[in-house]
C-alpha cells in the first residue's frame, strides 16, 4: 500500500484529492415549514381591478376546485434558497466530478452555451398552443433535427414526442402492435423478445404495452444467445427489443442474424439506441436490419439528463411504419412548417404536443456545432477513452471484465469485483461509496446482478487522459484499502454525505412512500 499522505503530491500535482463534502443535516422541506411564514406577500387586489375582473375563480367548475388549500410548506424566501443550496452542496453531480461511474447513462459534458440558447426568451416565451405561423422557427429546428436523425439511423421518419427513452420503447412496442393489427395478427402475436443485458426498460415497456416477455440469457461468451433466439421465435413473436452494444459494452456481432430470424418469423425489430455514443457515424439501425429505433437526446445528444427530465426519446421508423407514428409530426410543405395529423393509422398521442422543444433545440445545437465528422469523432473518442480506462482498471487486483475475453469494448464496461469480494468480503457497492470520499462515485448495475459484484463505467468523450488516470487511481486506492483495511471501506463514506442505506425496504412495496403525505400515513403520523 502506498502512503497516500506522503505521496499526495507528485511534481506539485495532487495524486488523490483531499475531498470533503459539506454535510448540512438538512431536514426534508416539509419539516422546515412553519405555519404563517411567507415567501411573498401578494398585494391586495385594488378595488378598481376587482370591480372589472369580478371573481376570477368563478369560471372554474366546482368539481375542479380544491376544497382545502394544498399543504405546502410555509417558508420565507431566504430559508428556501438556503435549503436548496445546502442540498446542492450535498450532491455529486455531473458538473462536479469525473462522472464516468454512471455507466449506461452517458454522462458527458453538456456545453453551457446550449443551456443559454434554451433559456433565451425567444424559446422560453413560446407556448405549444400558439398558432403554427408564429412558431415557424422551432418547427424548422424540429424538422431539421429529424433529417439529422434519419441520416444517423438510416430510418425514414421520426417523432420527437416521447418524453424519455422508456416512453420511446413503449411507443415502439405500440407501433409494433398497430402493425400486426393492420395485418390481422395482433391477437396471435403476443410475445416480445429481449435479452437480459438489454436495458430493463425494454422488457418493462413491452409488458406495460401488454406483451408477454421472453428474455434471452447470454451464451458462455456473453453474447446474446442466437440458439436461444431460434428457440424463442414462433408465430407468436411480435418483435425484438434489443440494446446493442448491451450494458456490458459488448457489441453483438450477430445482430444482423438476429433481425433476420425475427423477420423470418414475421416479427419486427426495434433497436434501443438510447445510448448511441459509441455508434455515431459508425453503424446504423438500418444496416443492421432494424425497423424501429430510438435515441435518448438526454444522453448521446448532450441535452443533458436534467435529473430525470425534461427529456426526449426520439423514435424512428421505416417508411412502411410511418403511418403508425404518434401525431402530430412536424412536416414541411416547401413553404412552411406545419403539424401533420395525417398518419392514417397513428397510435395516437404518447404525450401532449410534439416534443420537449428546449431539449430538441439543445440537441440540435450540439450536433450542428460538431458536424458529421465531429459526431463520428465523439464515438471514436468515447470508445478510445473506454478502452484506455479498461486497461487501467483491469490492472487493479481483484477486478475483471467478464465475457468476451481479450476483446475490446464499445463505450462502456460492466466490471466485476467478484475476486476482491471473495478475498476481502467487501462488496462492490461499498467500493463505489468509498470512492465518494475522493469526490467520485460509481454505480453497480441494474438488477438482477447477472455479473456478480458489478460496476459499470462509461467515460464518454468528455474526459481527458489525466482525468481518467485520476479516476483509475482512486479506484486502485479504494480497492487496495479493501485488502488492507476492509472495515474502513465498509463503513464509508467518511468524507461525503452519501449515506449507506438499507436496501431491504426497497423490496417491499408496503414500505414505499412516494409523497410526504404517504410517508406520514405509513409511519402513523397522520391518517
Amino acid at each position, binding site marked *: 500500500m502506498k502512503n497516500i499522505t506522503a505521496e499526495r503530491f507528485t511534481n506539485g500535482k495532487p495524486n488523490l484529492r483531499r475531498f470533503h463534502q459539506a454535510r448540512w443535516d438538512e431536514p426534508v422541506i416539509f419539516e422546515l415549514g412553519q405555519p404563517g411564514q411567507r415567501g411573498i406577500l401578494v398585494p391586495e387586489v385594488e378595488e378598481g381591478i376587482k370591480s372589472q375582473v369580478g371573481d376570477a375563480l368563478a369560471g372554474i367548475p366546482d368539481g375542479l376546485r380544491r376544497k382545502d388549500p394544498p399543504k405546502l410548506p410555509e417558508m420565507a424566501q431566504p430559508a428556501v434558497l438556503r435549503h436548496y443550496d445546502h442540498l446542492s452542496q450535498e450532491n455529486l453531480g455531473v458538473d462536479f466530478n469525473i462522472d464516468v461511474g454512471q455507466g449506461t447513462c452517458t454522462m458527458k459534458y453538456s456545453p453551457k452555451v446550449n443551456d443559454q440558447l434554451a433559456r433565451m426568451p425567444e424559446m422560453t416565451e413560446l407556448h405549444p398552443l400558439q398558432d403554427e405561423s408564429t412558431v415557424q422557427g422551432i418547427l424548422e429546428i424540429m424538422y431539421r433535427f429529424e433529417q439529422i436523425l434519419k441520416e444517423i439511423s438510416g430510418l425514414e421518419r421520426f417523432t420527437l414526442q416521447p418524453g424519455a427513452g422508456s416512453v420511446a420503447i413503449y411507443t415502439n412496442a405500440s407501433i409494433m402492435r398497430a402493425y400486426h393489427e393492420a395485418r390481422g395478427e395482433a391477437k396471435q402475436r403476443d410475445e416480445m423478445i429481449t435479452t437480459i443485458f438489454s436495458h430493463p426498460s425494454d422488457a418493462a415497456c413491452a409488458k406495460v404495452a401488454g*406483451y*408477454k416477455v421472453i428474455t434471452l*440469457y447470454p451464451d458462455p461468451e456473453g453474447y446474446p444467445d442466437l440458439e*436461444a433466439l431460434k428457440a*424463442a421465435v414462433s408465430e407468436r413473436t411480435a418483435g425484438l427489443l434489443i440494446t446493442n452494444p448491451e450494458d456490458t459494452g459488448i457489441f453483438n456481432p450477430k445482430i444482423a442474424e438476429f433481425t433476420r430470424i425475427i423477420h423470418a418469423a414475421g416479427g419486427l425489430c426495434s433497436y434501443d439506441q438510447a445510448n448511441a455514443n459509441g455508434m455515431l457515424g459508425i453503424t446504423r439501425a438500418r444496416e443492421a436490419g432494424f425497423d424501429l429505433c430510438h435515441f435518448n437526446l438526454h444522453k448521446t445528444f448532450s441535452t443533458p439528463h436534467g435529473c430525470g427530465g425534461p427529456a426526449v426519446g426520439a423514435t424512428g421508423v421505416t417508411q412502411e411504419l410511418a403511418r403508425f407514428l404518434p401525431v402530430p409530426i412536424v412536416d414541411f410543405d416547401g413553404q412552411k412548417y406545419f403539424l401533420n395529423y395525417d398518419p392514417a393509422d397513428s397510435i395516437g398521442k404518447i404525450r401532449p404536443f410534439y416534443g420537449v422543444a428546449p431539449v430538441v433545440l439543445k440537441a440540435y445545437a450540439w450536433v450542428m456545432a460538431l458536424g458529421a465528422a465531429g459526431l463520428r469523432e465523439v464515438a471514436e473518442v468515447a470508445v478510445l477513452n473506454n478502452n484506455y480506462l479498461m486497461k487501467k482498471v483491469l490492472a487493479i487486483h481483484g477486478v475483471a471484465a467478464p465475457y468476451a475475453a481479450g476483446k475490446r469494448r464499445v463505450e462502456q464496461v460492466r466490471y466485476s469485483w467478484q475476486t476482491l469480494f471473495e478475498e476481502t468480503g467487501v462488496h462492490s457497492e461499498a467500493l463505489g461509496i468509498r470512492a465518494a470520499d475522493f469526490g467520485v462515485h460509481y454505480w453497480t448495475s441494474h438488477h*438482477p*446482478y447477472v455479473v456478480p*459484484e458489478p460496476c459499470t463505467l462509461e467515460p464518454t468523450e468528455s474526459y481527458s487522459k489525466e482525468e481518467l488516470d485520476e479516476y483509475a487511481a482512486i479506484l486502485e486506492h479504494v480497492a487496495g484499502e479493501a485488502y488492507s483495511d476492509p472495515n474502513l471501506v465498509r463503513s464509508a463514506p467518511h468524507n461525503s454525505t452519501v449515506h449507506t442505506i438499507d436496501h431491504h425496504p426497497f423490496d417491499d412495496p408496503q414500505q414505499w412512500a412516494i409523497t410526504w403525505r404517504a410517508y406520514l400515513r405509513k409511519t402513523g403520523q397522520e391518517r
Partner: protein
Amino acid sequence: MKRIGLVVNPIAGLGGRVGLKGSDGMELQRKALELGAVPHAVERAAQALQALLPLGAEFELLTYPFAMGAEAARQAGIDPCVLGSIQPGQTSAEDTVRAAREMAENEVRLLLFAGGDGTARDICNAIGMEIPALGIPAGVKIQSAVYATAPRYAGELAAAFLRGETELRQAEVMDLDEDAFRAGRVSACLYGYLKTPYSQRYVQGVKVPSLSRESAVLEAIAGDLADRMKPGWLYIFGPGSTTQAVATHIGFDKTLLGVDAVLDGKIVSADASEADLLRLLSVNRLAEIVVTPIGGQGCIFGRGNQPISPDVIRKVGRAHIRVISTPEKIQALNGHPLWADTGDRAVDEMLSGYLVVLTGYKESVMYKVMA
C-alpha cells in the same frame, strides 16, 4: 435480550482436506483424523460469531459444551450460556439433534449451526421450520441453500436478522448420497427446508438481489399459471417451496416434498407415486407438468421428483412441461444450464435444448437445458 443458539458439528469438514468427500460416519472420521485432518469447524464458527460482537449486550448466546459451541464462543470473545453435556471427541448426529432441540425449547430467535449438508439435515430433523436457522459453512459438501457463502456472512446476516432487516425464506436442505458420491457419482436429493433469514445485502453475488419480494414474484408466477390452467387438464406439480407457494396462491394445498396432481382446481392425488401418475394419465391425456429447478444446481428432473418418471414425461410431452422459477434462482445458476437425470438417456436428450422458464406474470426466460 435476544437469544441466539449455536450448534457446531466439530468434525464437519474433516474428510474434505484429506480427500474423503464427506465426514459422515464414525469410521470415516477416525480415518480422516489418522490421515492428519485438522478440524476447523470451531474456527469457522468463531469467525461468524465475531460479526455479532457489535450487537454488544443486546444478545445472549446459548450453546453446547466444548467443541460443539462453547469453544467457538470463547474464541470470538463471547461468554455463552452452555447447555447439555457431551463426550468431547466422540460427538455424533444425535448430539446435533439433541442440541438443536434444546435450543428450540429455550426459544432462541435464531439457530446458527456450523457444518455441511449432513449437519443441515440433522438440524432439519430436529427443528424443521419451527424456528429460523442459518448455516455457517464448514463442511465438505455444501449444496444446501441454508448456508451463507462464508462464515463471516453468516454472522453478518444473523446480526441483520436480529436488527429486523431481513425476511425469512424457505431454503433447501440438500444432501448427496455419500456412498454414491465417494463412488464418483453425484446424486443429490432435496431433503427438506429450513426457515432461513435472507437479505440481498449479505448474499449478493450468490443469490441475486431482486426488485420485488420473493412472495410477490411467486404470486405473479401463480397469476400467470392460473390464467393458463384449463378445465379437464391434469396438472402435475413437482416438489419444492416454489411450486408449493405458487400452488397456495392458486388456491390449493400442495405437499412440500411430494408430487401432487391437480384436476379442475382440486388435488386428485397428493404425494403421488409414478404408478398414481400413470393411472391418472391413462384417463386424462391432456396434462402439464409444473416443476422448479433445484436451487443452486439446476436439476429439473430426477432429484427428489422421481415419481415424474421418464414414462410420465413421455406421456405428457416436452411441449407441456412448464418450468417455473424466481429470477433469482435462475441467476444463482451463474450461467450453468438446467439439466435432467431421469435415468433414461432418451428422455434426458429429449428434454435438452432450450426450455421456457416462467419467472413472473407474463415474464419468462429462454434457458438452456444440458444434454
